[in-house]
């Protein structure tokens, strides 16, 4: 069986700077894989390459057997790869409900003409979009918040809203970029449960960048370690914890 996501020989160069080199990553269906490494190791760059924000200098990125390297981000998303951002990027002046609905827009078929004429097709679709978005908000415990502006939510709820938005159009693969950043220990615990829960509920495959060892070791089945743009280790959490290269490169120089 081939992997759901198969990255091989990825090279990302910006001018003279090589951000990622000879990077390979396979993620199987329904796996939960962690990507860790010190700041500037190239983790987010890998995410950006997978989601189409960057065009790889070289290498191949296959998703469900299809080459997606160099596709525009919205195409990658439409194929079933959704993501969140390290520094939360919500549509701040849209309501909570609209933030989620808009992420399902691409599956709609009622265009400008149907919208302007308010045809039955348009009405049905609006109802479907709203119902689906409310379903996700309920899962994330945000159903009471739907008419608030996104910018007015507290930080933890903004994180959850971003995940709700990423899940609304049934992605196969979810990329989470430091979802626990800025959370207190209690919220981190909740987040870990949430990640496990949505993975089961939506039959998701998850790739996770995280700094907090507690999260990575707690939820991931497999962990990849990057340093200076290269993969230096890969294995089950307990193997990674014991790997001397990793301890030297990462755990030794940062909090454990």
């Amino acid at each position, binding site marked *: 069986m081939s992997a759901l996501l198969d990255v091989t020989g990825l090279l990302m160069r910006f001018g003279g700077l090589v951000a990622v080199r000879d990077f390979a990553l396979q993620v199987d269906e329904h796996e939960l894989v962690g990507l860790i490494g010190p700041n500037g190791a190239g983790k987010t760059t890998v995410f950006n390459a997978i989601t189409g924000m960057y065009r790889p200098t070289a290498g191949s990125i296959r998703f469900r057997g299809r080459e997606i390297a160099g596709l*525009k981000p919205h195409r990658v998303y439409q194929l079933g790869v959704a993501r969140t951002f390290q520094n939360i990027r919500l*549509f701040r002046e849209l309501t909570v409900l609209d933030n989620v*609905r*808009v*992420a399902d*827009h691409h599956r709609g078929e*009622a265009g*400008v003409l149907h919208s302007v004429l308010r045809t039955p097709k348009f009405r049905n679709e609006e109802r479907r979009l709203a119902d689906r978005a409310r379903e996700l908000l309920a899962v994330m415990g945000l159903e009471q918040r739907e*008419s608030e502006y996104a910018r007015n939510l507290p930080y933890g709820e903004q994180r959850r809203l971003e995940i709700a938005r990423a899940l609304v159009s049934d992605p196969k693969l979810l990329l989470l970029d430091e979802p626990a950043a800025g959370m207190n220990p209690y919220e981190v615990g909740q987040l870990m449960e949430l990640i496990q829960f949505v993975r089961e509920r939506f039959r998701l495959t998850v790739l996770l960048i995280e700094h907090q060892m507690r999260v990575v070791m707690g939820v991931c089945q497999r962990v990849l370690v990057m340093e200076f743009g290269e993969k230096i280790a890969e294995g089950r959490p307990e193997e990674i914890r014991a790997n001397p290269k990793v301890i030297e490169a990462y755990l030794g120089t940062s909090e454990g």
Partner: protein
Amino acid sequence: MRTDGARRRPEPGTIAVIVAVGGFVLLQALMWLGVLNPYWQQVLNLAGITLISALGLNLIYGYTGQFSLGHAAFYGVGAYASALLTRSLGPGAGTLLLGIVAGAALAALVAFLIGLPILRLRSDYLAIATLGFGIIMKVLLDNSDAVIPMMGGSSGMSGIARLTTFPWVFAFGLAAVLVMRNLVFSSVGRALVSVREDELAAEAVGIDTTRYKTLGFVIGCGYAGVAGALYAHLYAYLNPFSFDFLKSIDVLLVVVLGGLGSISGTLVAAIAWTFLLEGLRVALPASVQDWRMVIYPLVMIVFMLFRPGGIFARTEFGFLKPRARRGKE
């Protein structure tokens, strides 16, 4: 099937139409009775035309977030295209309608062609590129008589039939508001706003941002085309001077005063501003007329400093929202 309590009440749009038609009858009656003299009728028509053009710019800038300083160029395209058409085909209601459609279509087409490359630019780079386009368009209009003598070049185009009357302006103004409302409060509208809010995040949730930027720009410029066509047949004379950079700022001012991303704001600001400017023309003695042009930019600066959201700051009149308000809020 769940029923939404709100759906039993009459559509707010229906109320809007009833109110609008009532207003129309009233204004027509005032004209018949001679209460509104021809001067103020002209001002009223101008306000409606400004409204249509400003709605278009609000769609481009207020909703889609693409800052354009070349709106008057598209207004000019619509004006000249429709004037050429009615002059060639002869005056009449049919040709005016055709002229408006053609003006809108040509403005939209030009917007599409120029928008494809230019809309890749961001923020102030886009502003300066659209400004440049506006200036180029004015130079082309100034020299248009070399190709089409009828257009008159820098000395202007005359001999246009005076076909624009209040019912025309009213009908198109009303349609412009309703179309805009239906567009903005729809999935397409939310996609447009998502581009304004965060282009990268919009891409990341499946919005083809290039496509929606172009869509907003093309429709907005189409609005300018309609406004231009009505303008051409209101004054019966066109001059490239009327479509320069300052005209673009004029429309921008209305949008900013009313509020970015607010139809109600543009509606109020277009009418209030036109009447204020023209009202001052009548009210002020000739010696201080020039002060109007000093007050005008001051208003712009004061609003930017103290109320950048405009009068309406992204809120709408109830009748311009598609659904009745919910219990909470």
